[in-house]
């Protein structure tokens, strides 16, 4: 009785591992299903949700907290699956989306670049150069995505319970060892971990419901749940918005009680601060570009290529 999240680098064999484990343990195996469910449940376009867990946010997304909204939908959808236990989720955000749940076994599968290039050539019918570029691009996007949302390097082994290098240790060889790990007492569901999962489910549902409200910025709100008692703290722009937050949260399935401590922030200080921060970053980047342009001018190379 456990939940397994498998994070993988592009073309590292994570999907294969997930399916083999699912066969061996009889667990349900999901990946893209959470996106489809989230799109159905919350009426959002699938591609936007897909981008939310695959691409780094743009400046506009950072200012409007659009990413957080989509992630709230995805987390709520994943929690709906995870509440029933015995689940394998393979996708790179699993360990972040189910953070704080003790019976979640976080696995990462990696492979060396030549093996990944080979897999990309076979699967996507690409040339060697294209495959390499594709892998590097996806890795870069994901790294920036994780850095932005969680301030962590997604390749750091510290984020996972186990990292497997499939270049040397074949997935078939790892299966028996992994089954032993899943069946160990450490990853069994306990009343405490089940409660933590339920609390995460309720807070995710509330977050997803609030994400549908147009004037609510999830980035300013902290939502916690304790056995159906939900506490919402943070800032909102007006009393009407605060009231709508309370009404919406009350209507969420599983919510028994609401405790609100939301302050009204008319000046939207944080919003303005964020804009200034973004301008500061743009200015820094501009300086960096200027440096390269000047350098390349001297050497007589193409400028546009350098900026890109």
């Amino acid at each position: 009785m456990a939940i397994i999240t498998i994070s993988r680098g592009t073309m590292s064999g994570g999907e294969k591992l997930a399916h083999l484990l699912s066969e061996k343990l009889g667990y349900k195996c999901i990946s893209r299903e959470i996106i489809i469910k989230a799109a159905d449940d919350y009426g959002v376009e699938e591609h936007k949700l897909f981008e939310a867990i695959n691409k780094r946010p743009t400046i506009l997304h950072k200012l409007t907290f659009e990413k957080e909204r989509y992630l709230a939908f995805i987390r709520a959808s994943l929690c709906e699956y995870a509440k029933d236990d015995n689940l394998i989720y393979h996708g790179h955000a699993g360990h972040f989306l189910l953070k704080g749940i003790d019976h979640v076994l976080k696995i990462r599968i990696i492979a060396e670049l030549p093996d990944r290039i080979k897999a990309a050539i076979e699967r996507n019918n690409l040339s060697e150069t294209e495959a390499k570029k594709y892998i590097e691009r996806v890795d870069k996007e994901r790294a920036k995505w994780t850095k932005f949302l969680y301030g962590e390097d997604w390749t750091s082994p510290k984020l996972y319970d186990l990292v497997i290098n499939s270049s040397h240790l074949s997935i078939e060889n790892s299966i028996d060892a992994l089954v032993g790990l899943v069946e160990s007492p450490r990853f069994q569901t306990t009343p405490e971990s089940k409660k933590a999962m339920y609390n995460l489910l309720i807070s995710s549902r509330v977050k997803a419901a609030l994400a549908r409200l147009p004037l609510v910025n999830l980035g300013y709100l902290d939502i916690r749940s304790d056995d159906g008692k939900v506490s919402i703290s943070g800032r909102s722009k007006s009393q009407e918005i605060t009231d709508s937050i309370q009404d919406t949260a009350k209507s969420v399935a599983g919510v028994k009680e609401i405790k609100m401590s939301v302050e009204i922030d008319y000046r939207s200080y944080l919003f303005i601060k964020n804009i200034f921060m973004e301008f500061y970053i743009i200015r820094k980047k501009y300086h960096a570009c200027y440096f390269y342009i000047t350098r390349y001018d001297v050497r007589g190379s193409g400028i546009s290529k350098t900026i890109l």
Partner: protein
Amino acid sequence: MSGVQELVKQFYERTGIRCISREDLLDVVSKHGDLALKAVTQLSEATSAYNHFSKLRRPYIILMRQALLEELQKDNILYNGFSGQLLVPRIKHFIRVRINAPLQLRIPPTIERLGVDEENARKYIREMDEQRVQWARYTYGRDIRDPLIYDLHFNLGHISMKVLCGIMKNLMSEPELQATEESKNEVWKLLQSTNIEAALICDIRTRNFEIHANFEKDKINLVGPYLEEKDLIVVKEIVRDTVQVEEIEYTPGYTSTIDIEGWQQFTLPGTII
């Protein structure tokens, strides 16, 4: 302070497999005389900029590698300490494991062992970690935190020693990870090449020549600096004294001691990480 010693102890109790550490290798290395002793003792501490230019790095790697390979030849062995996985290439029946433990698990044994307060224990662990990273980067040119240089990476924050031992035991019994004649032969050939390099390093006449050996069937390929006829005779004589071989081929070529990757790739094409 990641619990490796505890793991080694438990692993031995459960499997009876011989466990060796860096100290065991040092005993073997020290038999090679003063230079060997100097190399292994000085290099263990070498993280300063001055030490980075030390000429002892190459002797250290070769002698430690030789000692490790001699042990590995006997099979069914667990080695721990000082990034030993970087001394030998990837061979079919080798499993490289790294154990990570969160700081909160490492602090209590540090406090107990050093008799310091929590703040100082934390500081000590961070400093030691940083030093090890620097040391391995200088010695092997690799970052030991890179998960790609291991086959398995465990986080003791969630996985107990008992479970970890169980996983390792299971893995070691996998048919695909058993030593075969072919993989044993690979280890033997590597040991022969390293024996030659060690013999050349330990001989005062050839100590300063950076010669790399590659043992093939009844043939030794040597690559190193351009040598005069008299030096070449000495080199060949030492090689013949070390291993029984019919043919020795010497090719002048440049090999950098700094470029550890390039050197390893030469001796073991396609097998090193």
